[in-house]
């Protein structure tokens, strides 16, 4: 039976796009341009080391440390760097603080710019036409799809990240969390709340 094995040389189950990427990888390895072990490390890094837990630490610190929050407002790149989060697609950072008056939401209508060192690689919906097209023209409709209904009095600022400035939303601290420490607070910060399409979670 041709399809019952899991041999690496049997490509018959790969989709056309997977085959094409595989062919390109083989060619680039053969030419000496890439090392397959380095590719494995890069994949593992974005799967397990660089992700939204980083951003959640920034948010929790901003919630608990007024001096840090002030620094984050004035120079987010340096304040975030102080926690060890730097690099590709996070070169120039701005922190956007949500308040009862203003809700911030981030999009990249032109490609899918996203603060990788703090949030990891972007989810599919962030990169797809429905979100990229509508976030700027219908932010309330978009938020409704995420189950977020803001007061009519809350103004929405949508940040279309068209340059190399990357934006991290600092969601509002949930109510009744005065007794929680930084680590527990970080657990309430979901990825989407740092894009501005959801709110931070409720205390248990």
């Amino acid at each position, binding site marked *: 039976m041709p399809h019952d094995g899991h041999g690496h040389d049997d490509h018959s189950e*790969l989709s056309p*796009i997977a085959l*094409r*990427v*595989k062919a*390109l*990888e083989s060619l*680039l390895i053969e*030419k*000496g*341009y*890439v*090392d397959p*072990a*380095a*590719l494995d490390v*890069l994949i593992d*890094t*974005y*799967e397990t080391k660089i*992700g939204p837990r980083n951003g959640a630490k920034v948010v929790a610190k901003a919630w608990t440390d007024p001096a840090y929050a002030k620094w984050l407002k004035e120079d987010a790149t340096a304040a975030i760097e102080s926690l060890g989060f*730097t*690099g*590709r697609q996070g*070169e*120039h950072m701005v922190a956007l603080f949500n308040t009862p008056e203003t809700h911030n939401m981030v999009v990249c*209508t*032109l*490609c899918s710019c996203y603060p990788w*060192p703090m949030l*990891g690689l972007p*989810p*599919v*919906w962030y*990169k*797809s*036409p*429905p*979100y990229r*097209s*509508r976030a*700027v*023209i219908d*932010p*309330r409709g978009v938020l409704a*799809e*995420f189950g977020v209904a803001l007061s009519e009095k809350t*103004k*929405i*600022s*949508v*940040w*279309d*990240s*068209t*340059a*190399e*400035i990357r934006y991290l939303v600092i969601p509002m601290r949930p109510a009744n969390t005065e007794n929680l420490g930084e680590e527990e607070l970080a657990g309430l910060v979901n*990825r*989407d709340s740092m894009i501005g399409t959801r709110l931070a979670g409720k205390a248990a």
Partner: protein
Amino acid sequence: MNGAHDLGGMMGFGPIAAPPSEPVFHEKWEGRMAALAMTVPGDWSIDEDRSACESMHPAKYLKTSYYEHWLHGLEFLLKKYTPDSSSPMRPEDIWAALTARRSYTRDVQTPAAFTIGQKIRVRIMNPTTHTRAPRYVRGHVGEVVKIHGAHVFPDSNAVARGENPQWLYTLRFTAKELWGHASNDSVMLDLWEPYLEPA
């Protein structure tokens, strides 16, 4: 270039369909593709890379996924450039490469032409090459809310005309100005000085 990538304000794409969580890479080839694009030692800029992804036929761009855009971009660039095979990235180089501090700001001699609070119009323009001024703001008036210094100018850098640094501003546009909506919402964009003129 007025391509399919310039999606702001378009309609008809349906619901957003956002699960609360999902794998970083949905299929194995996506991870391989991402890793290839980030490790091939090519002598091209991020702007040229974006421009290469945008060179897909509009119908194809809209039908394909993010990492397929990356594949198209990398194939496009590899036809144009020969990478440097003398020092491929090793496993131990990856962390440093991904976390390296870089900057897109550059020193320039000329002062910024606009000031915070000033009302500025985005020029009506239709460049045939890469630009970061989306169609939906062209011709519209916004207010300068921040000046970021001079940054590498993508429109030049993407076509190998050099970094040509230009002042970068954050402008606030009201939803009424852009879309005719009677709301207090606004859209903020980072725009370079050559895109802008006094209102």
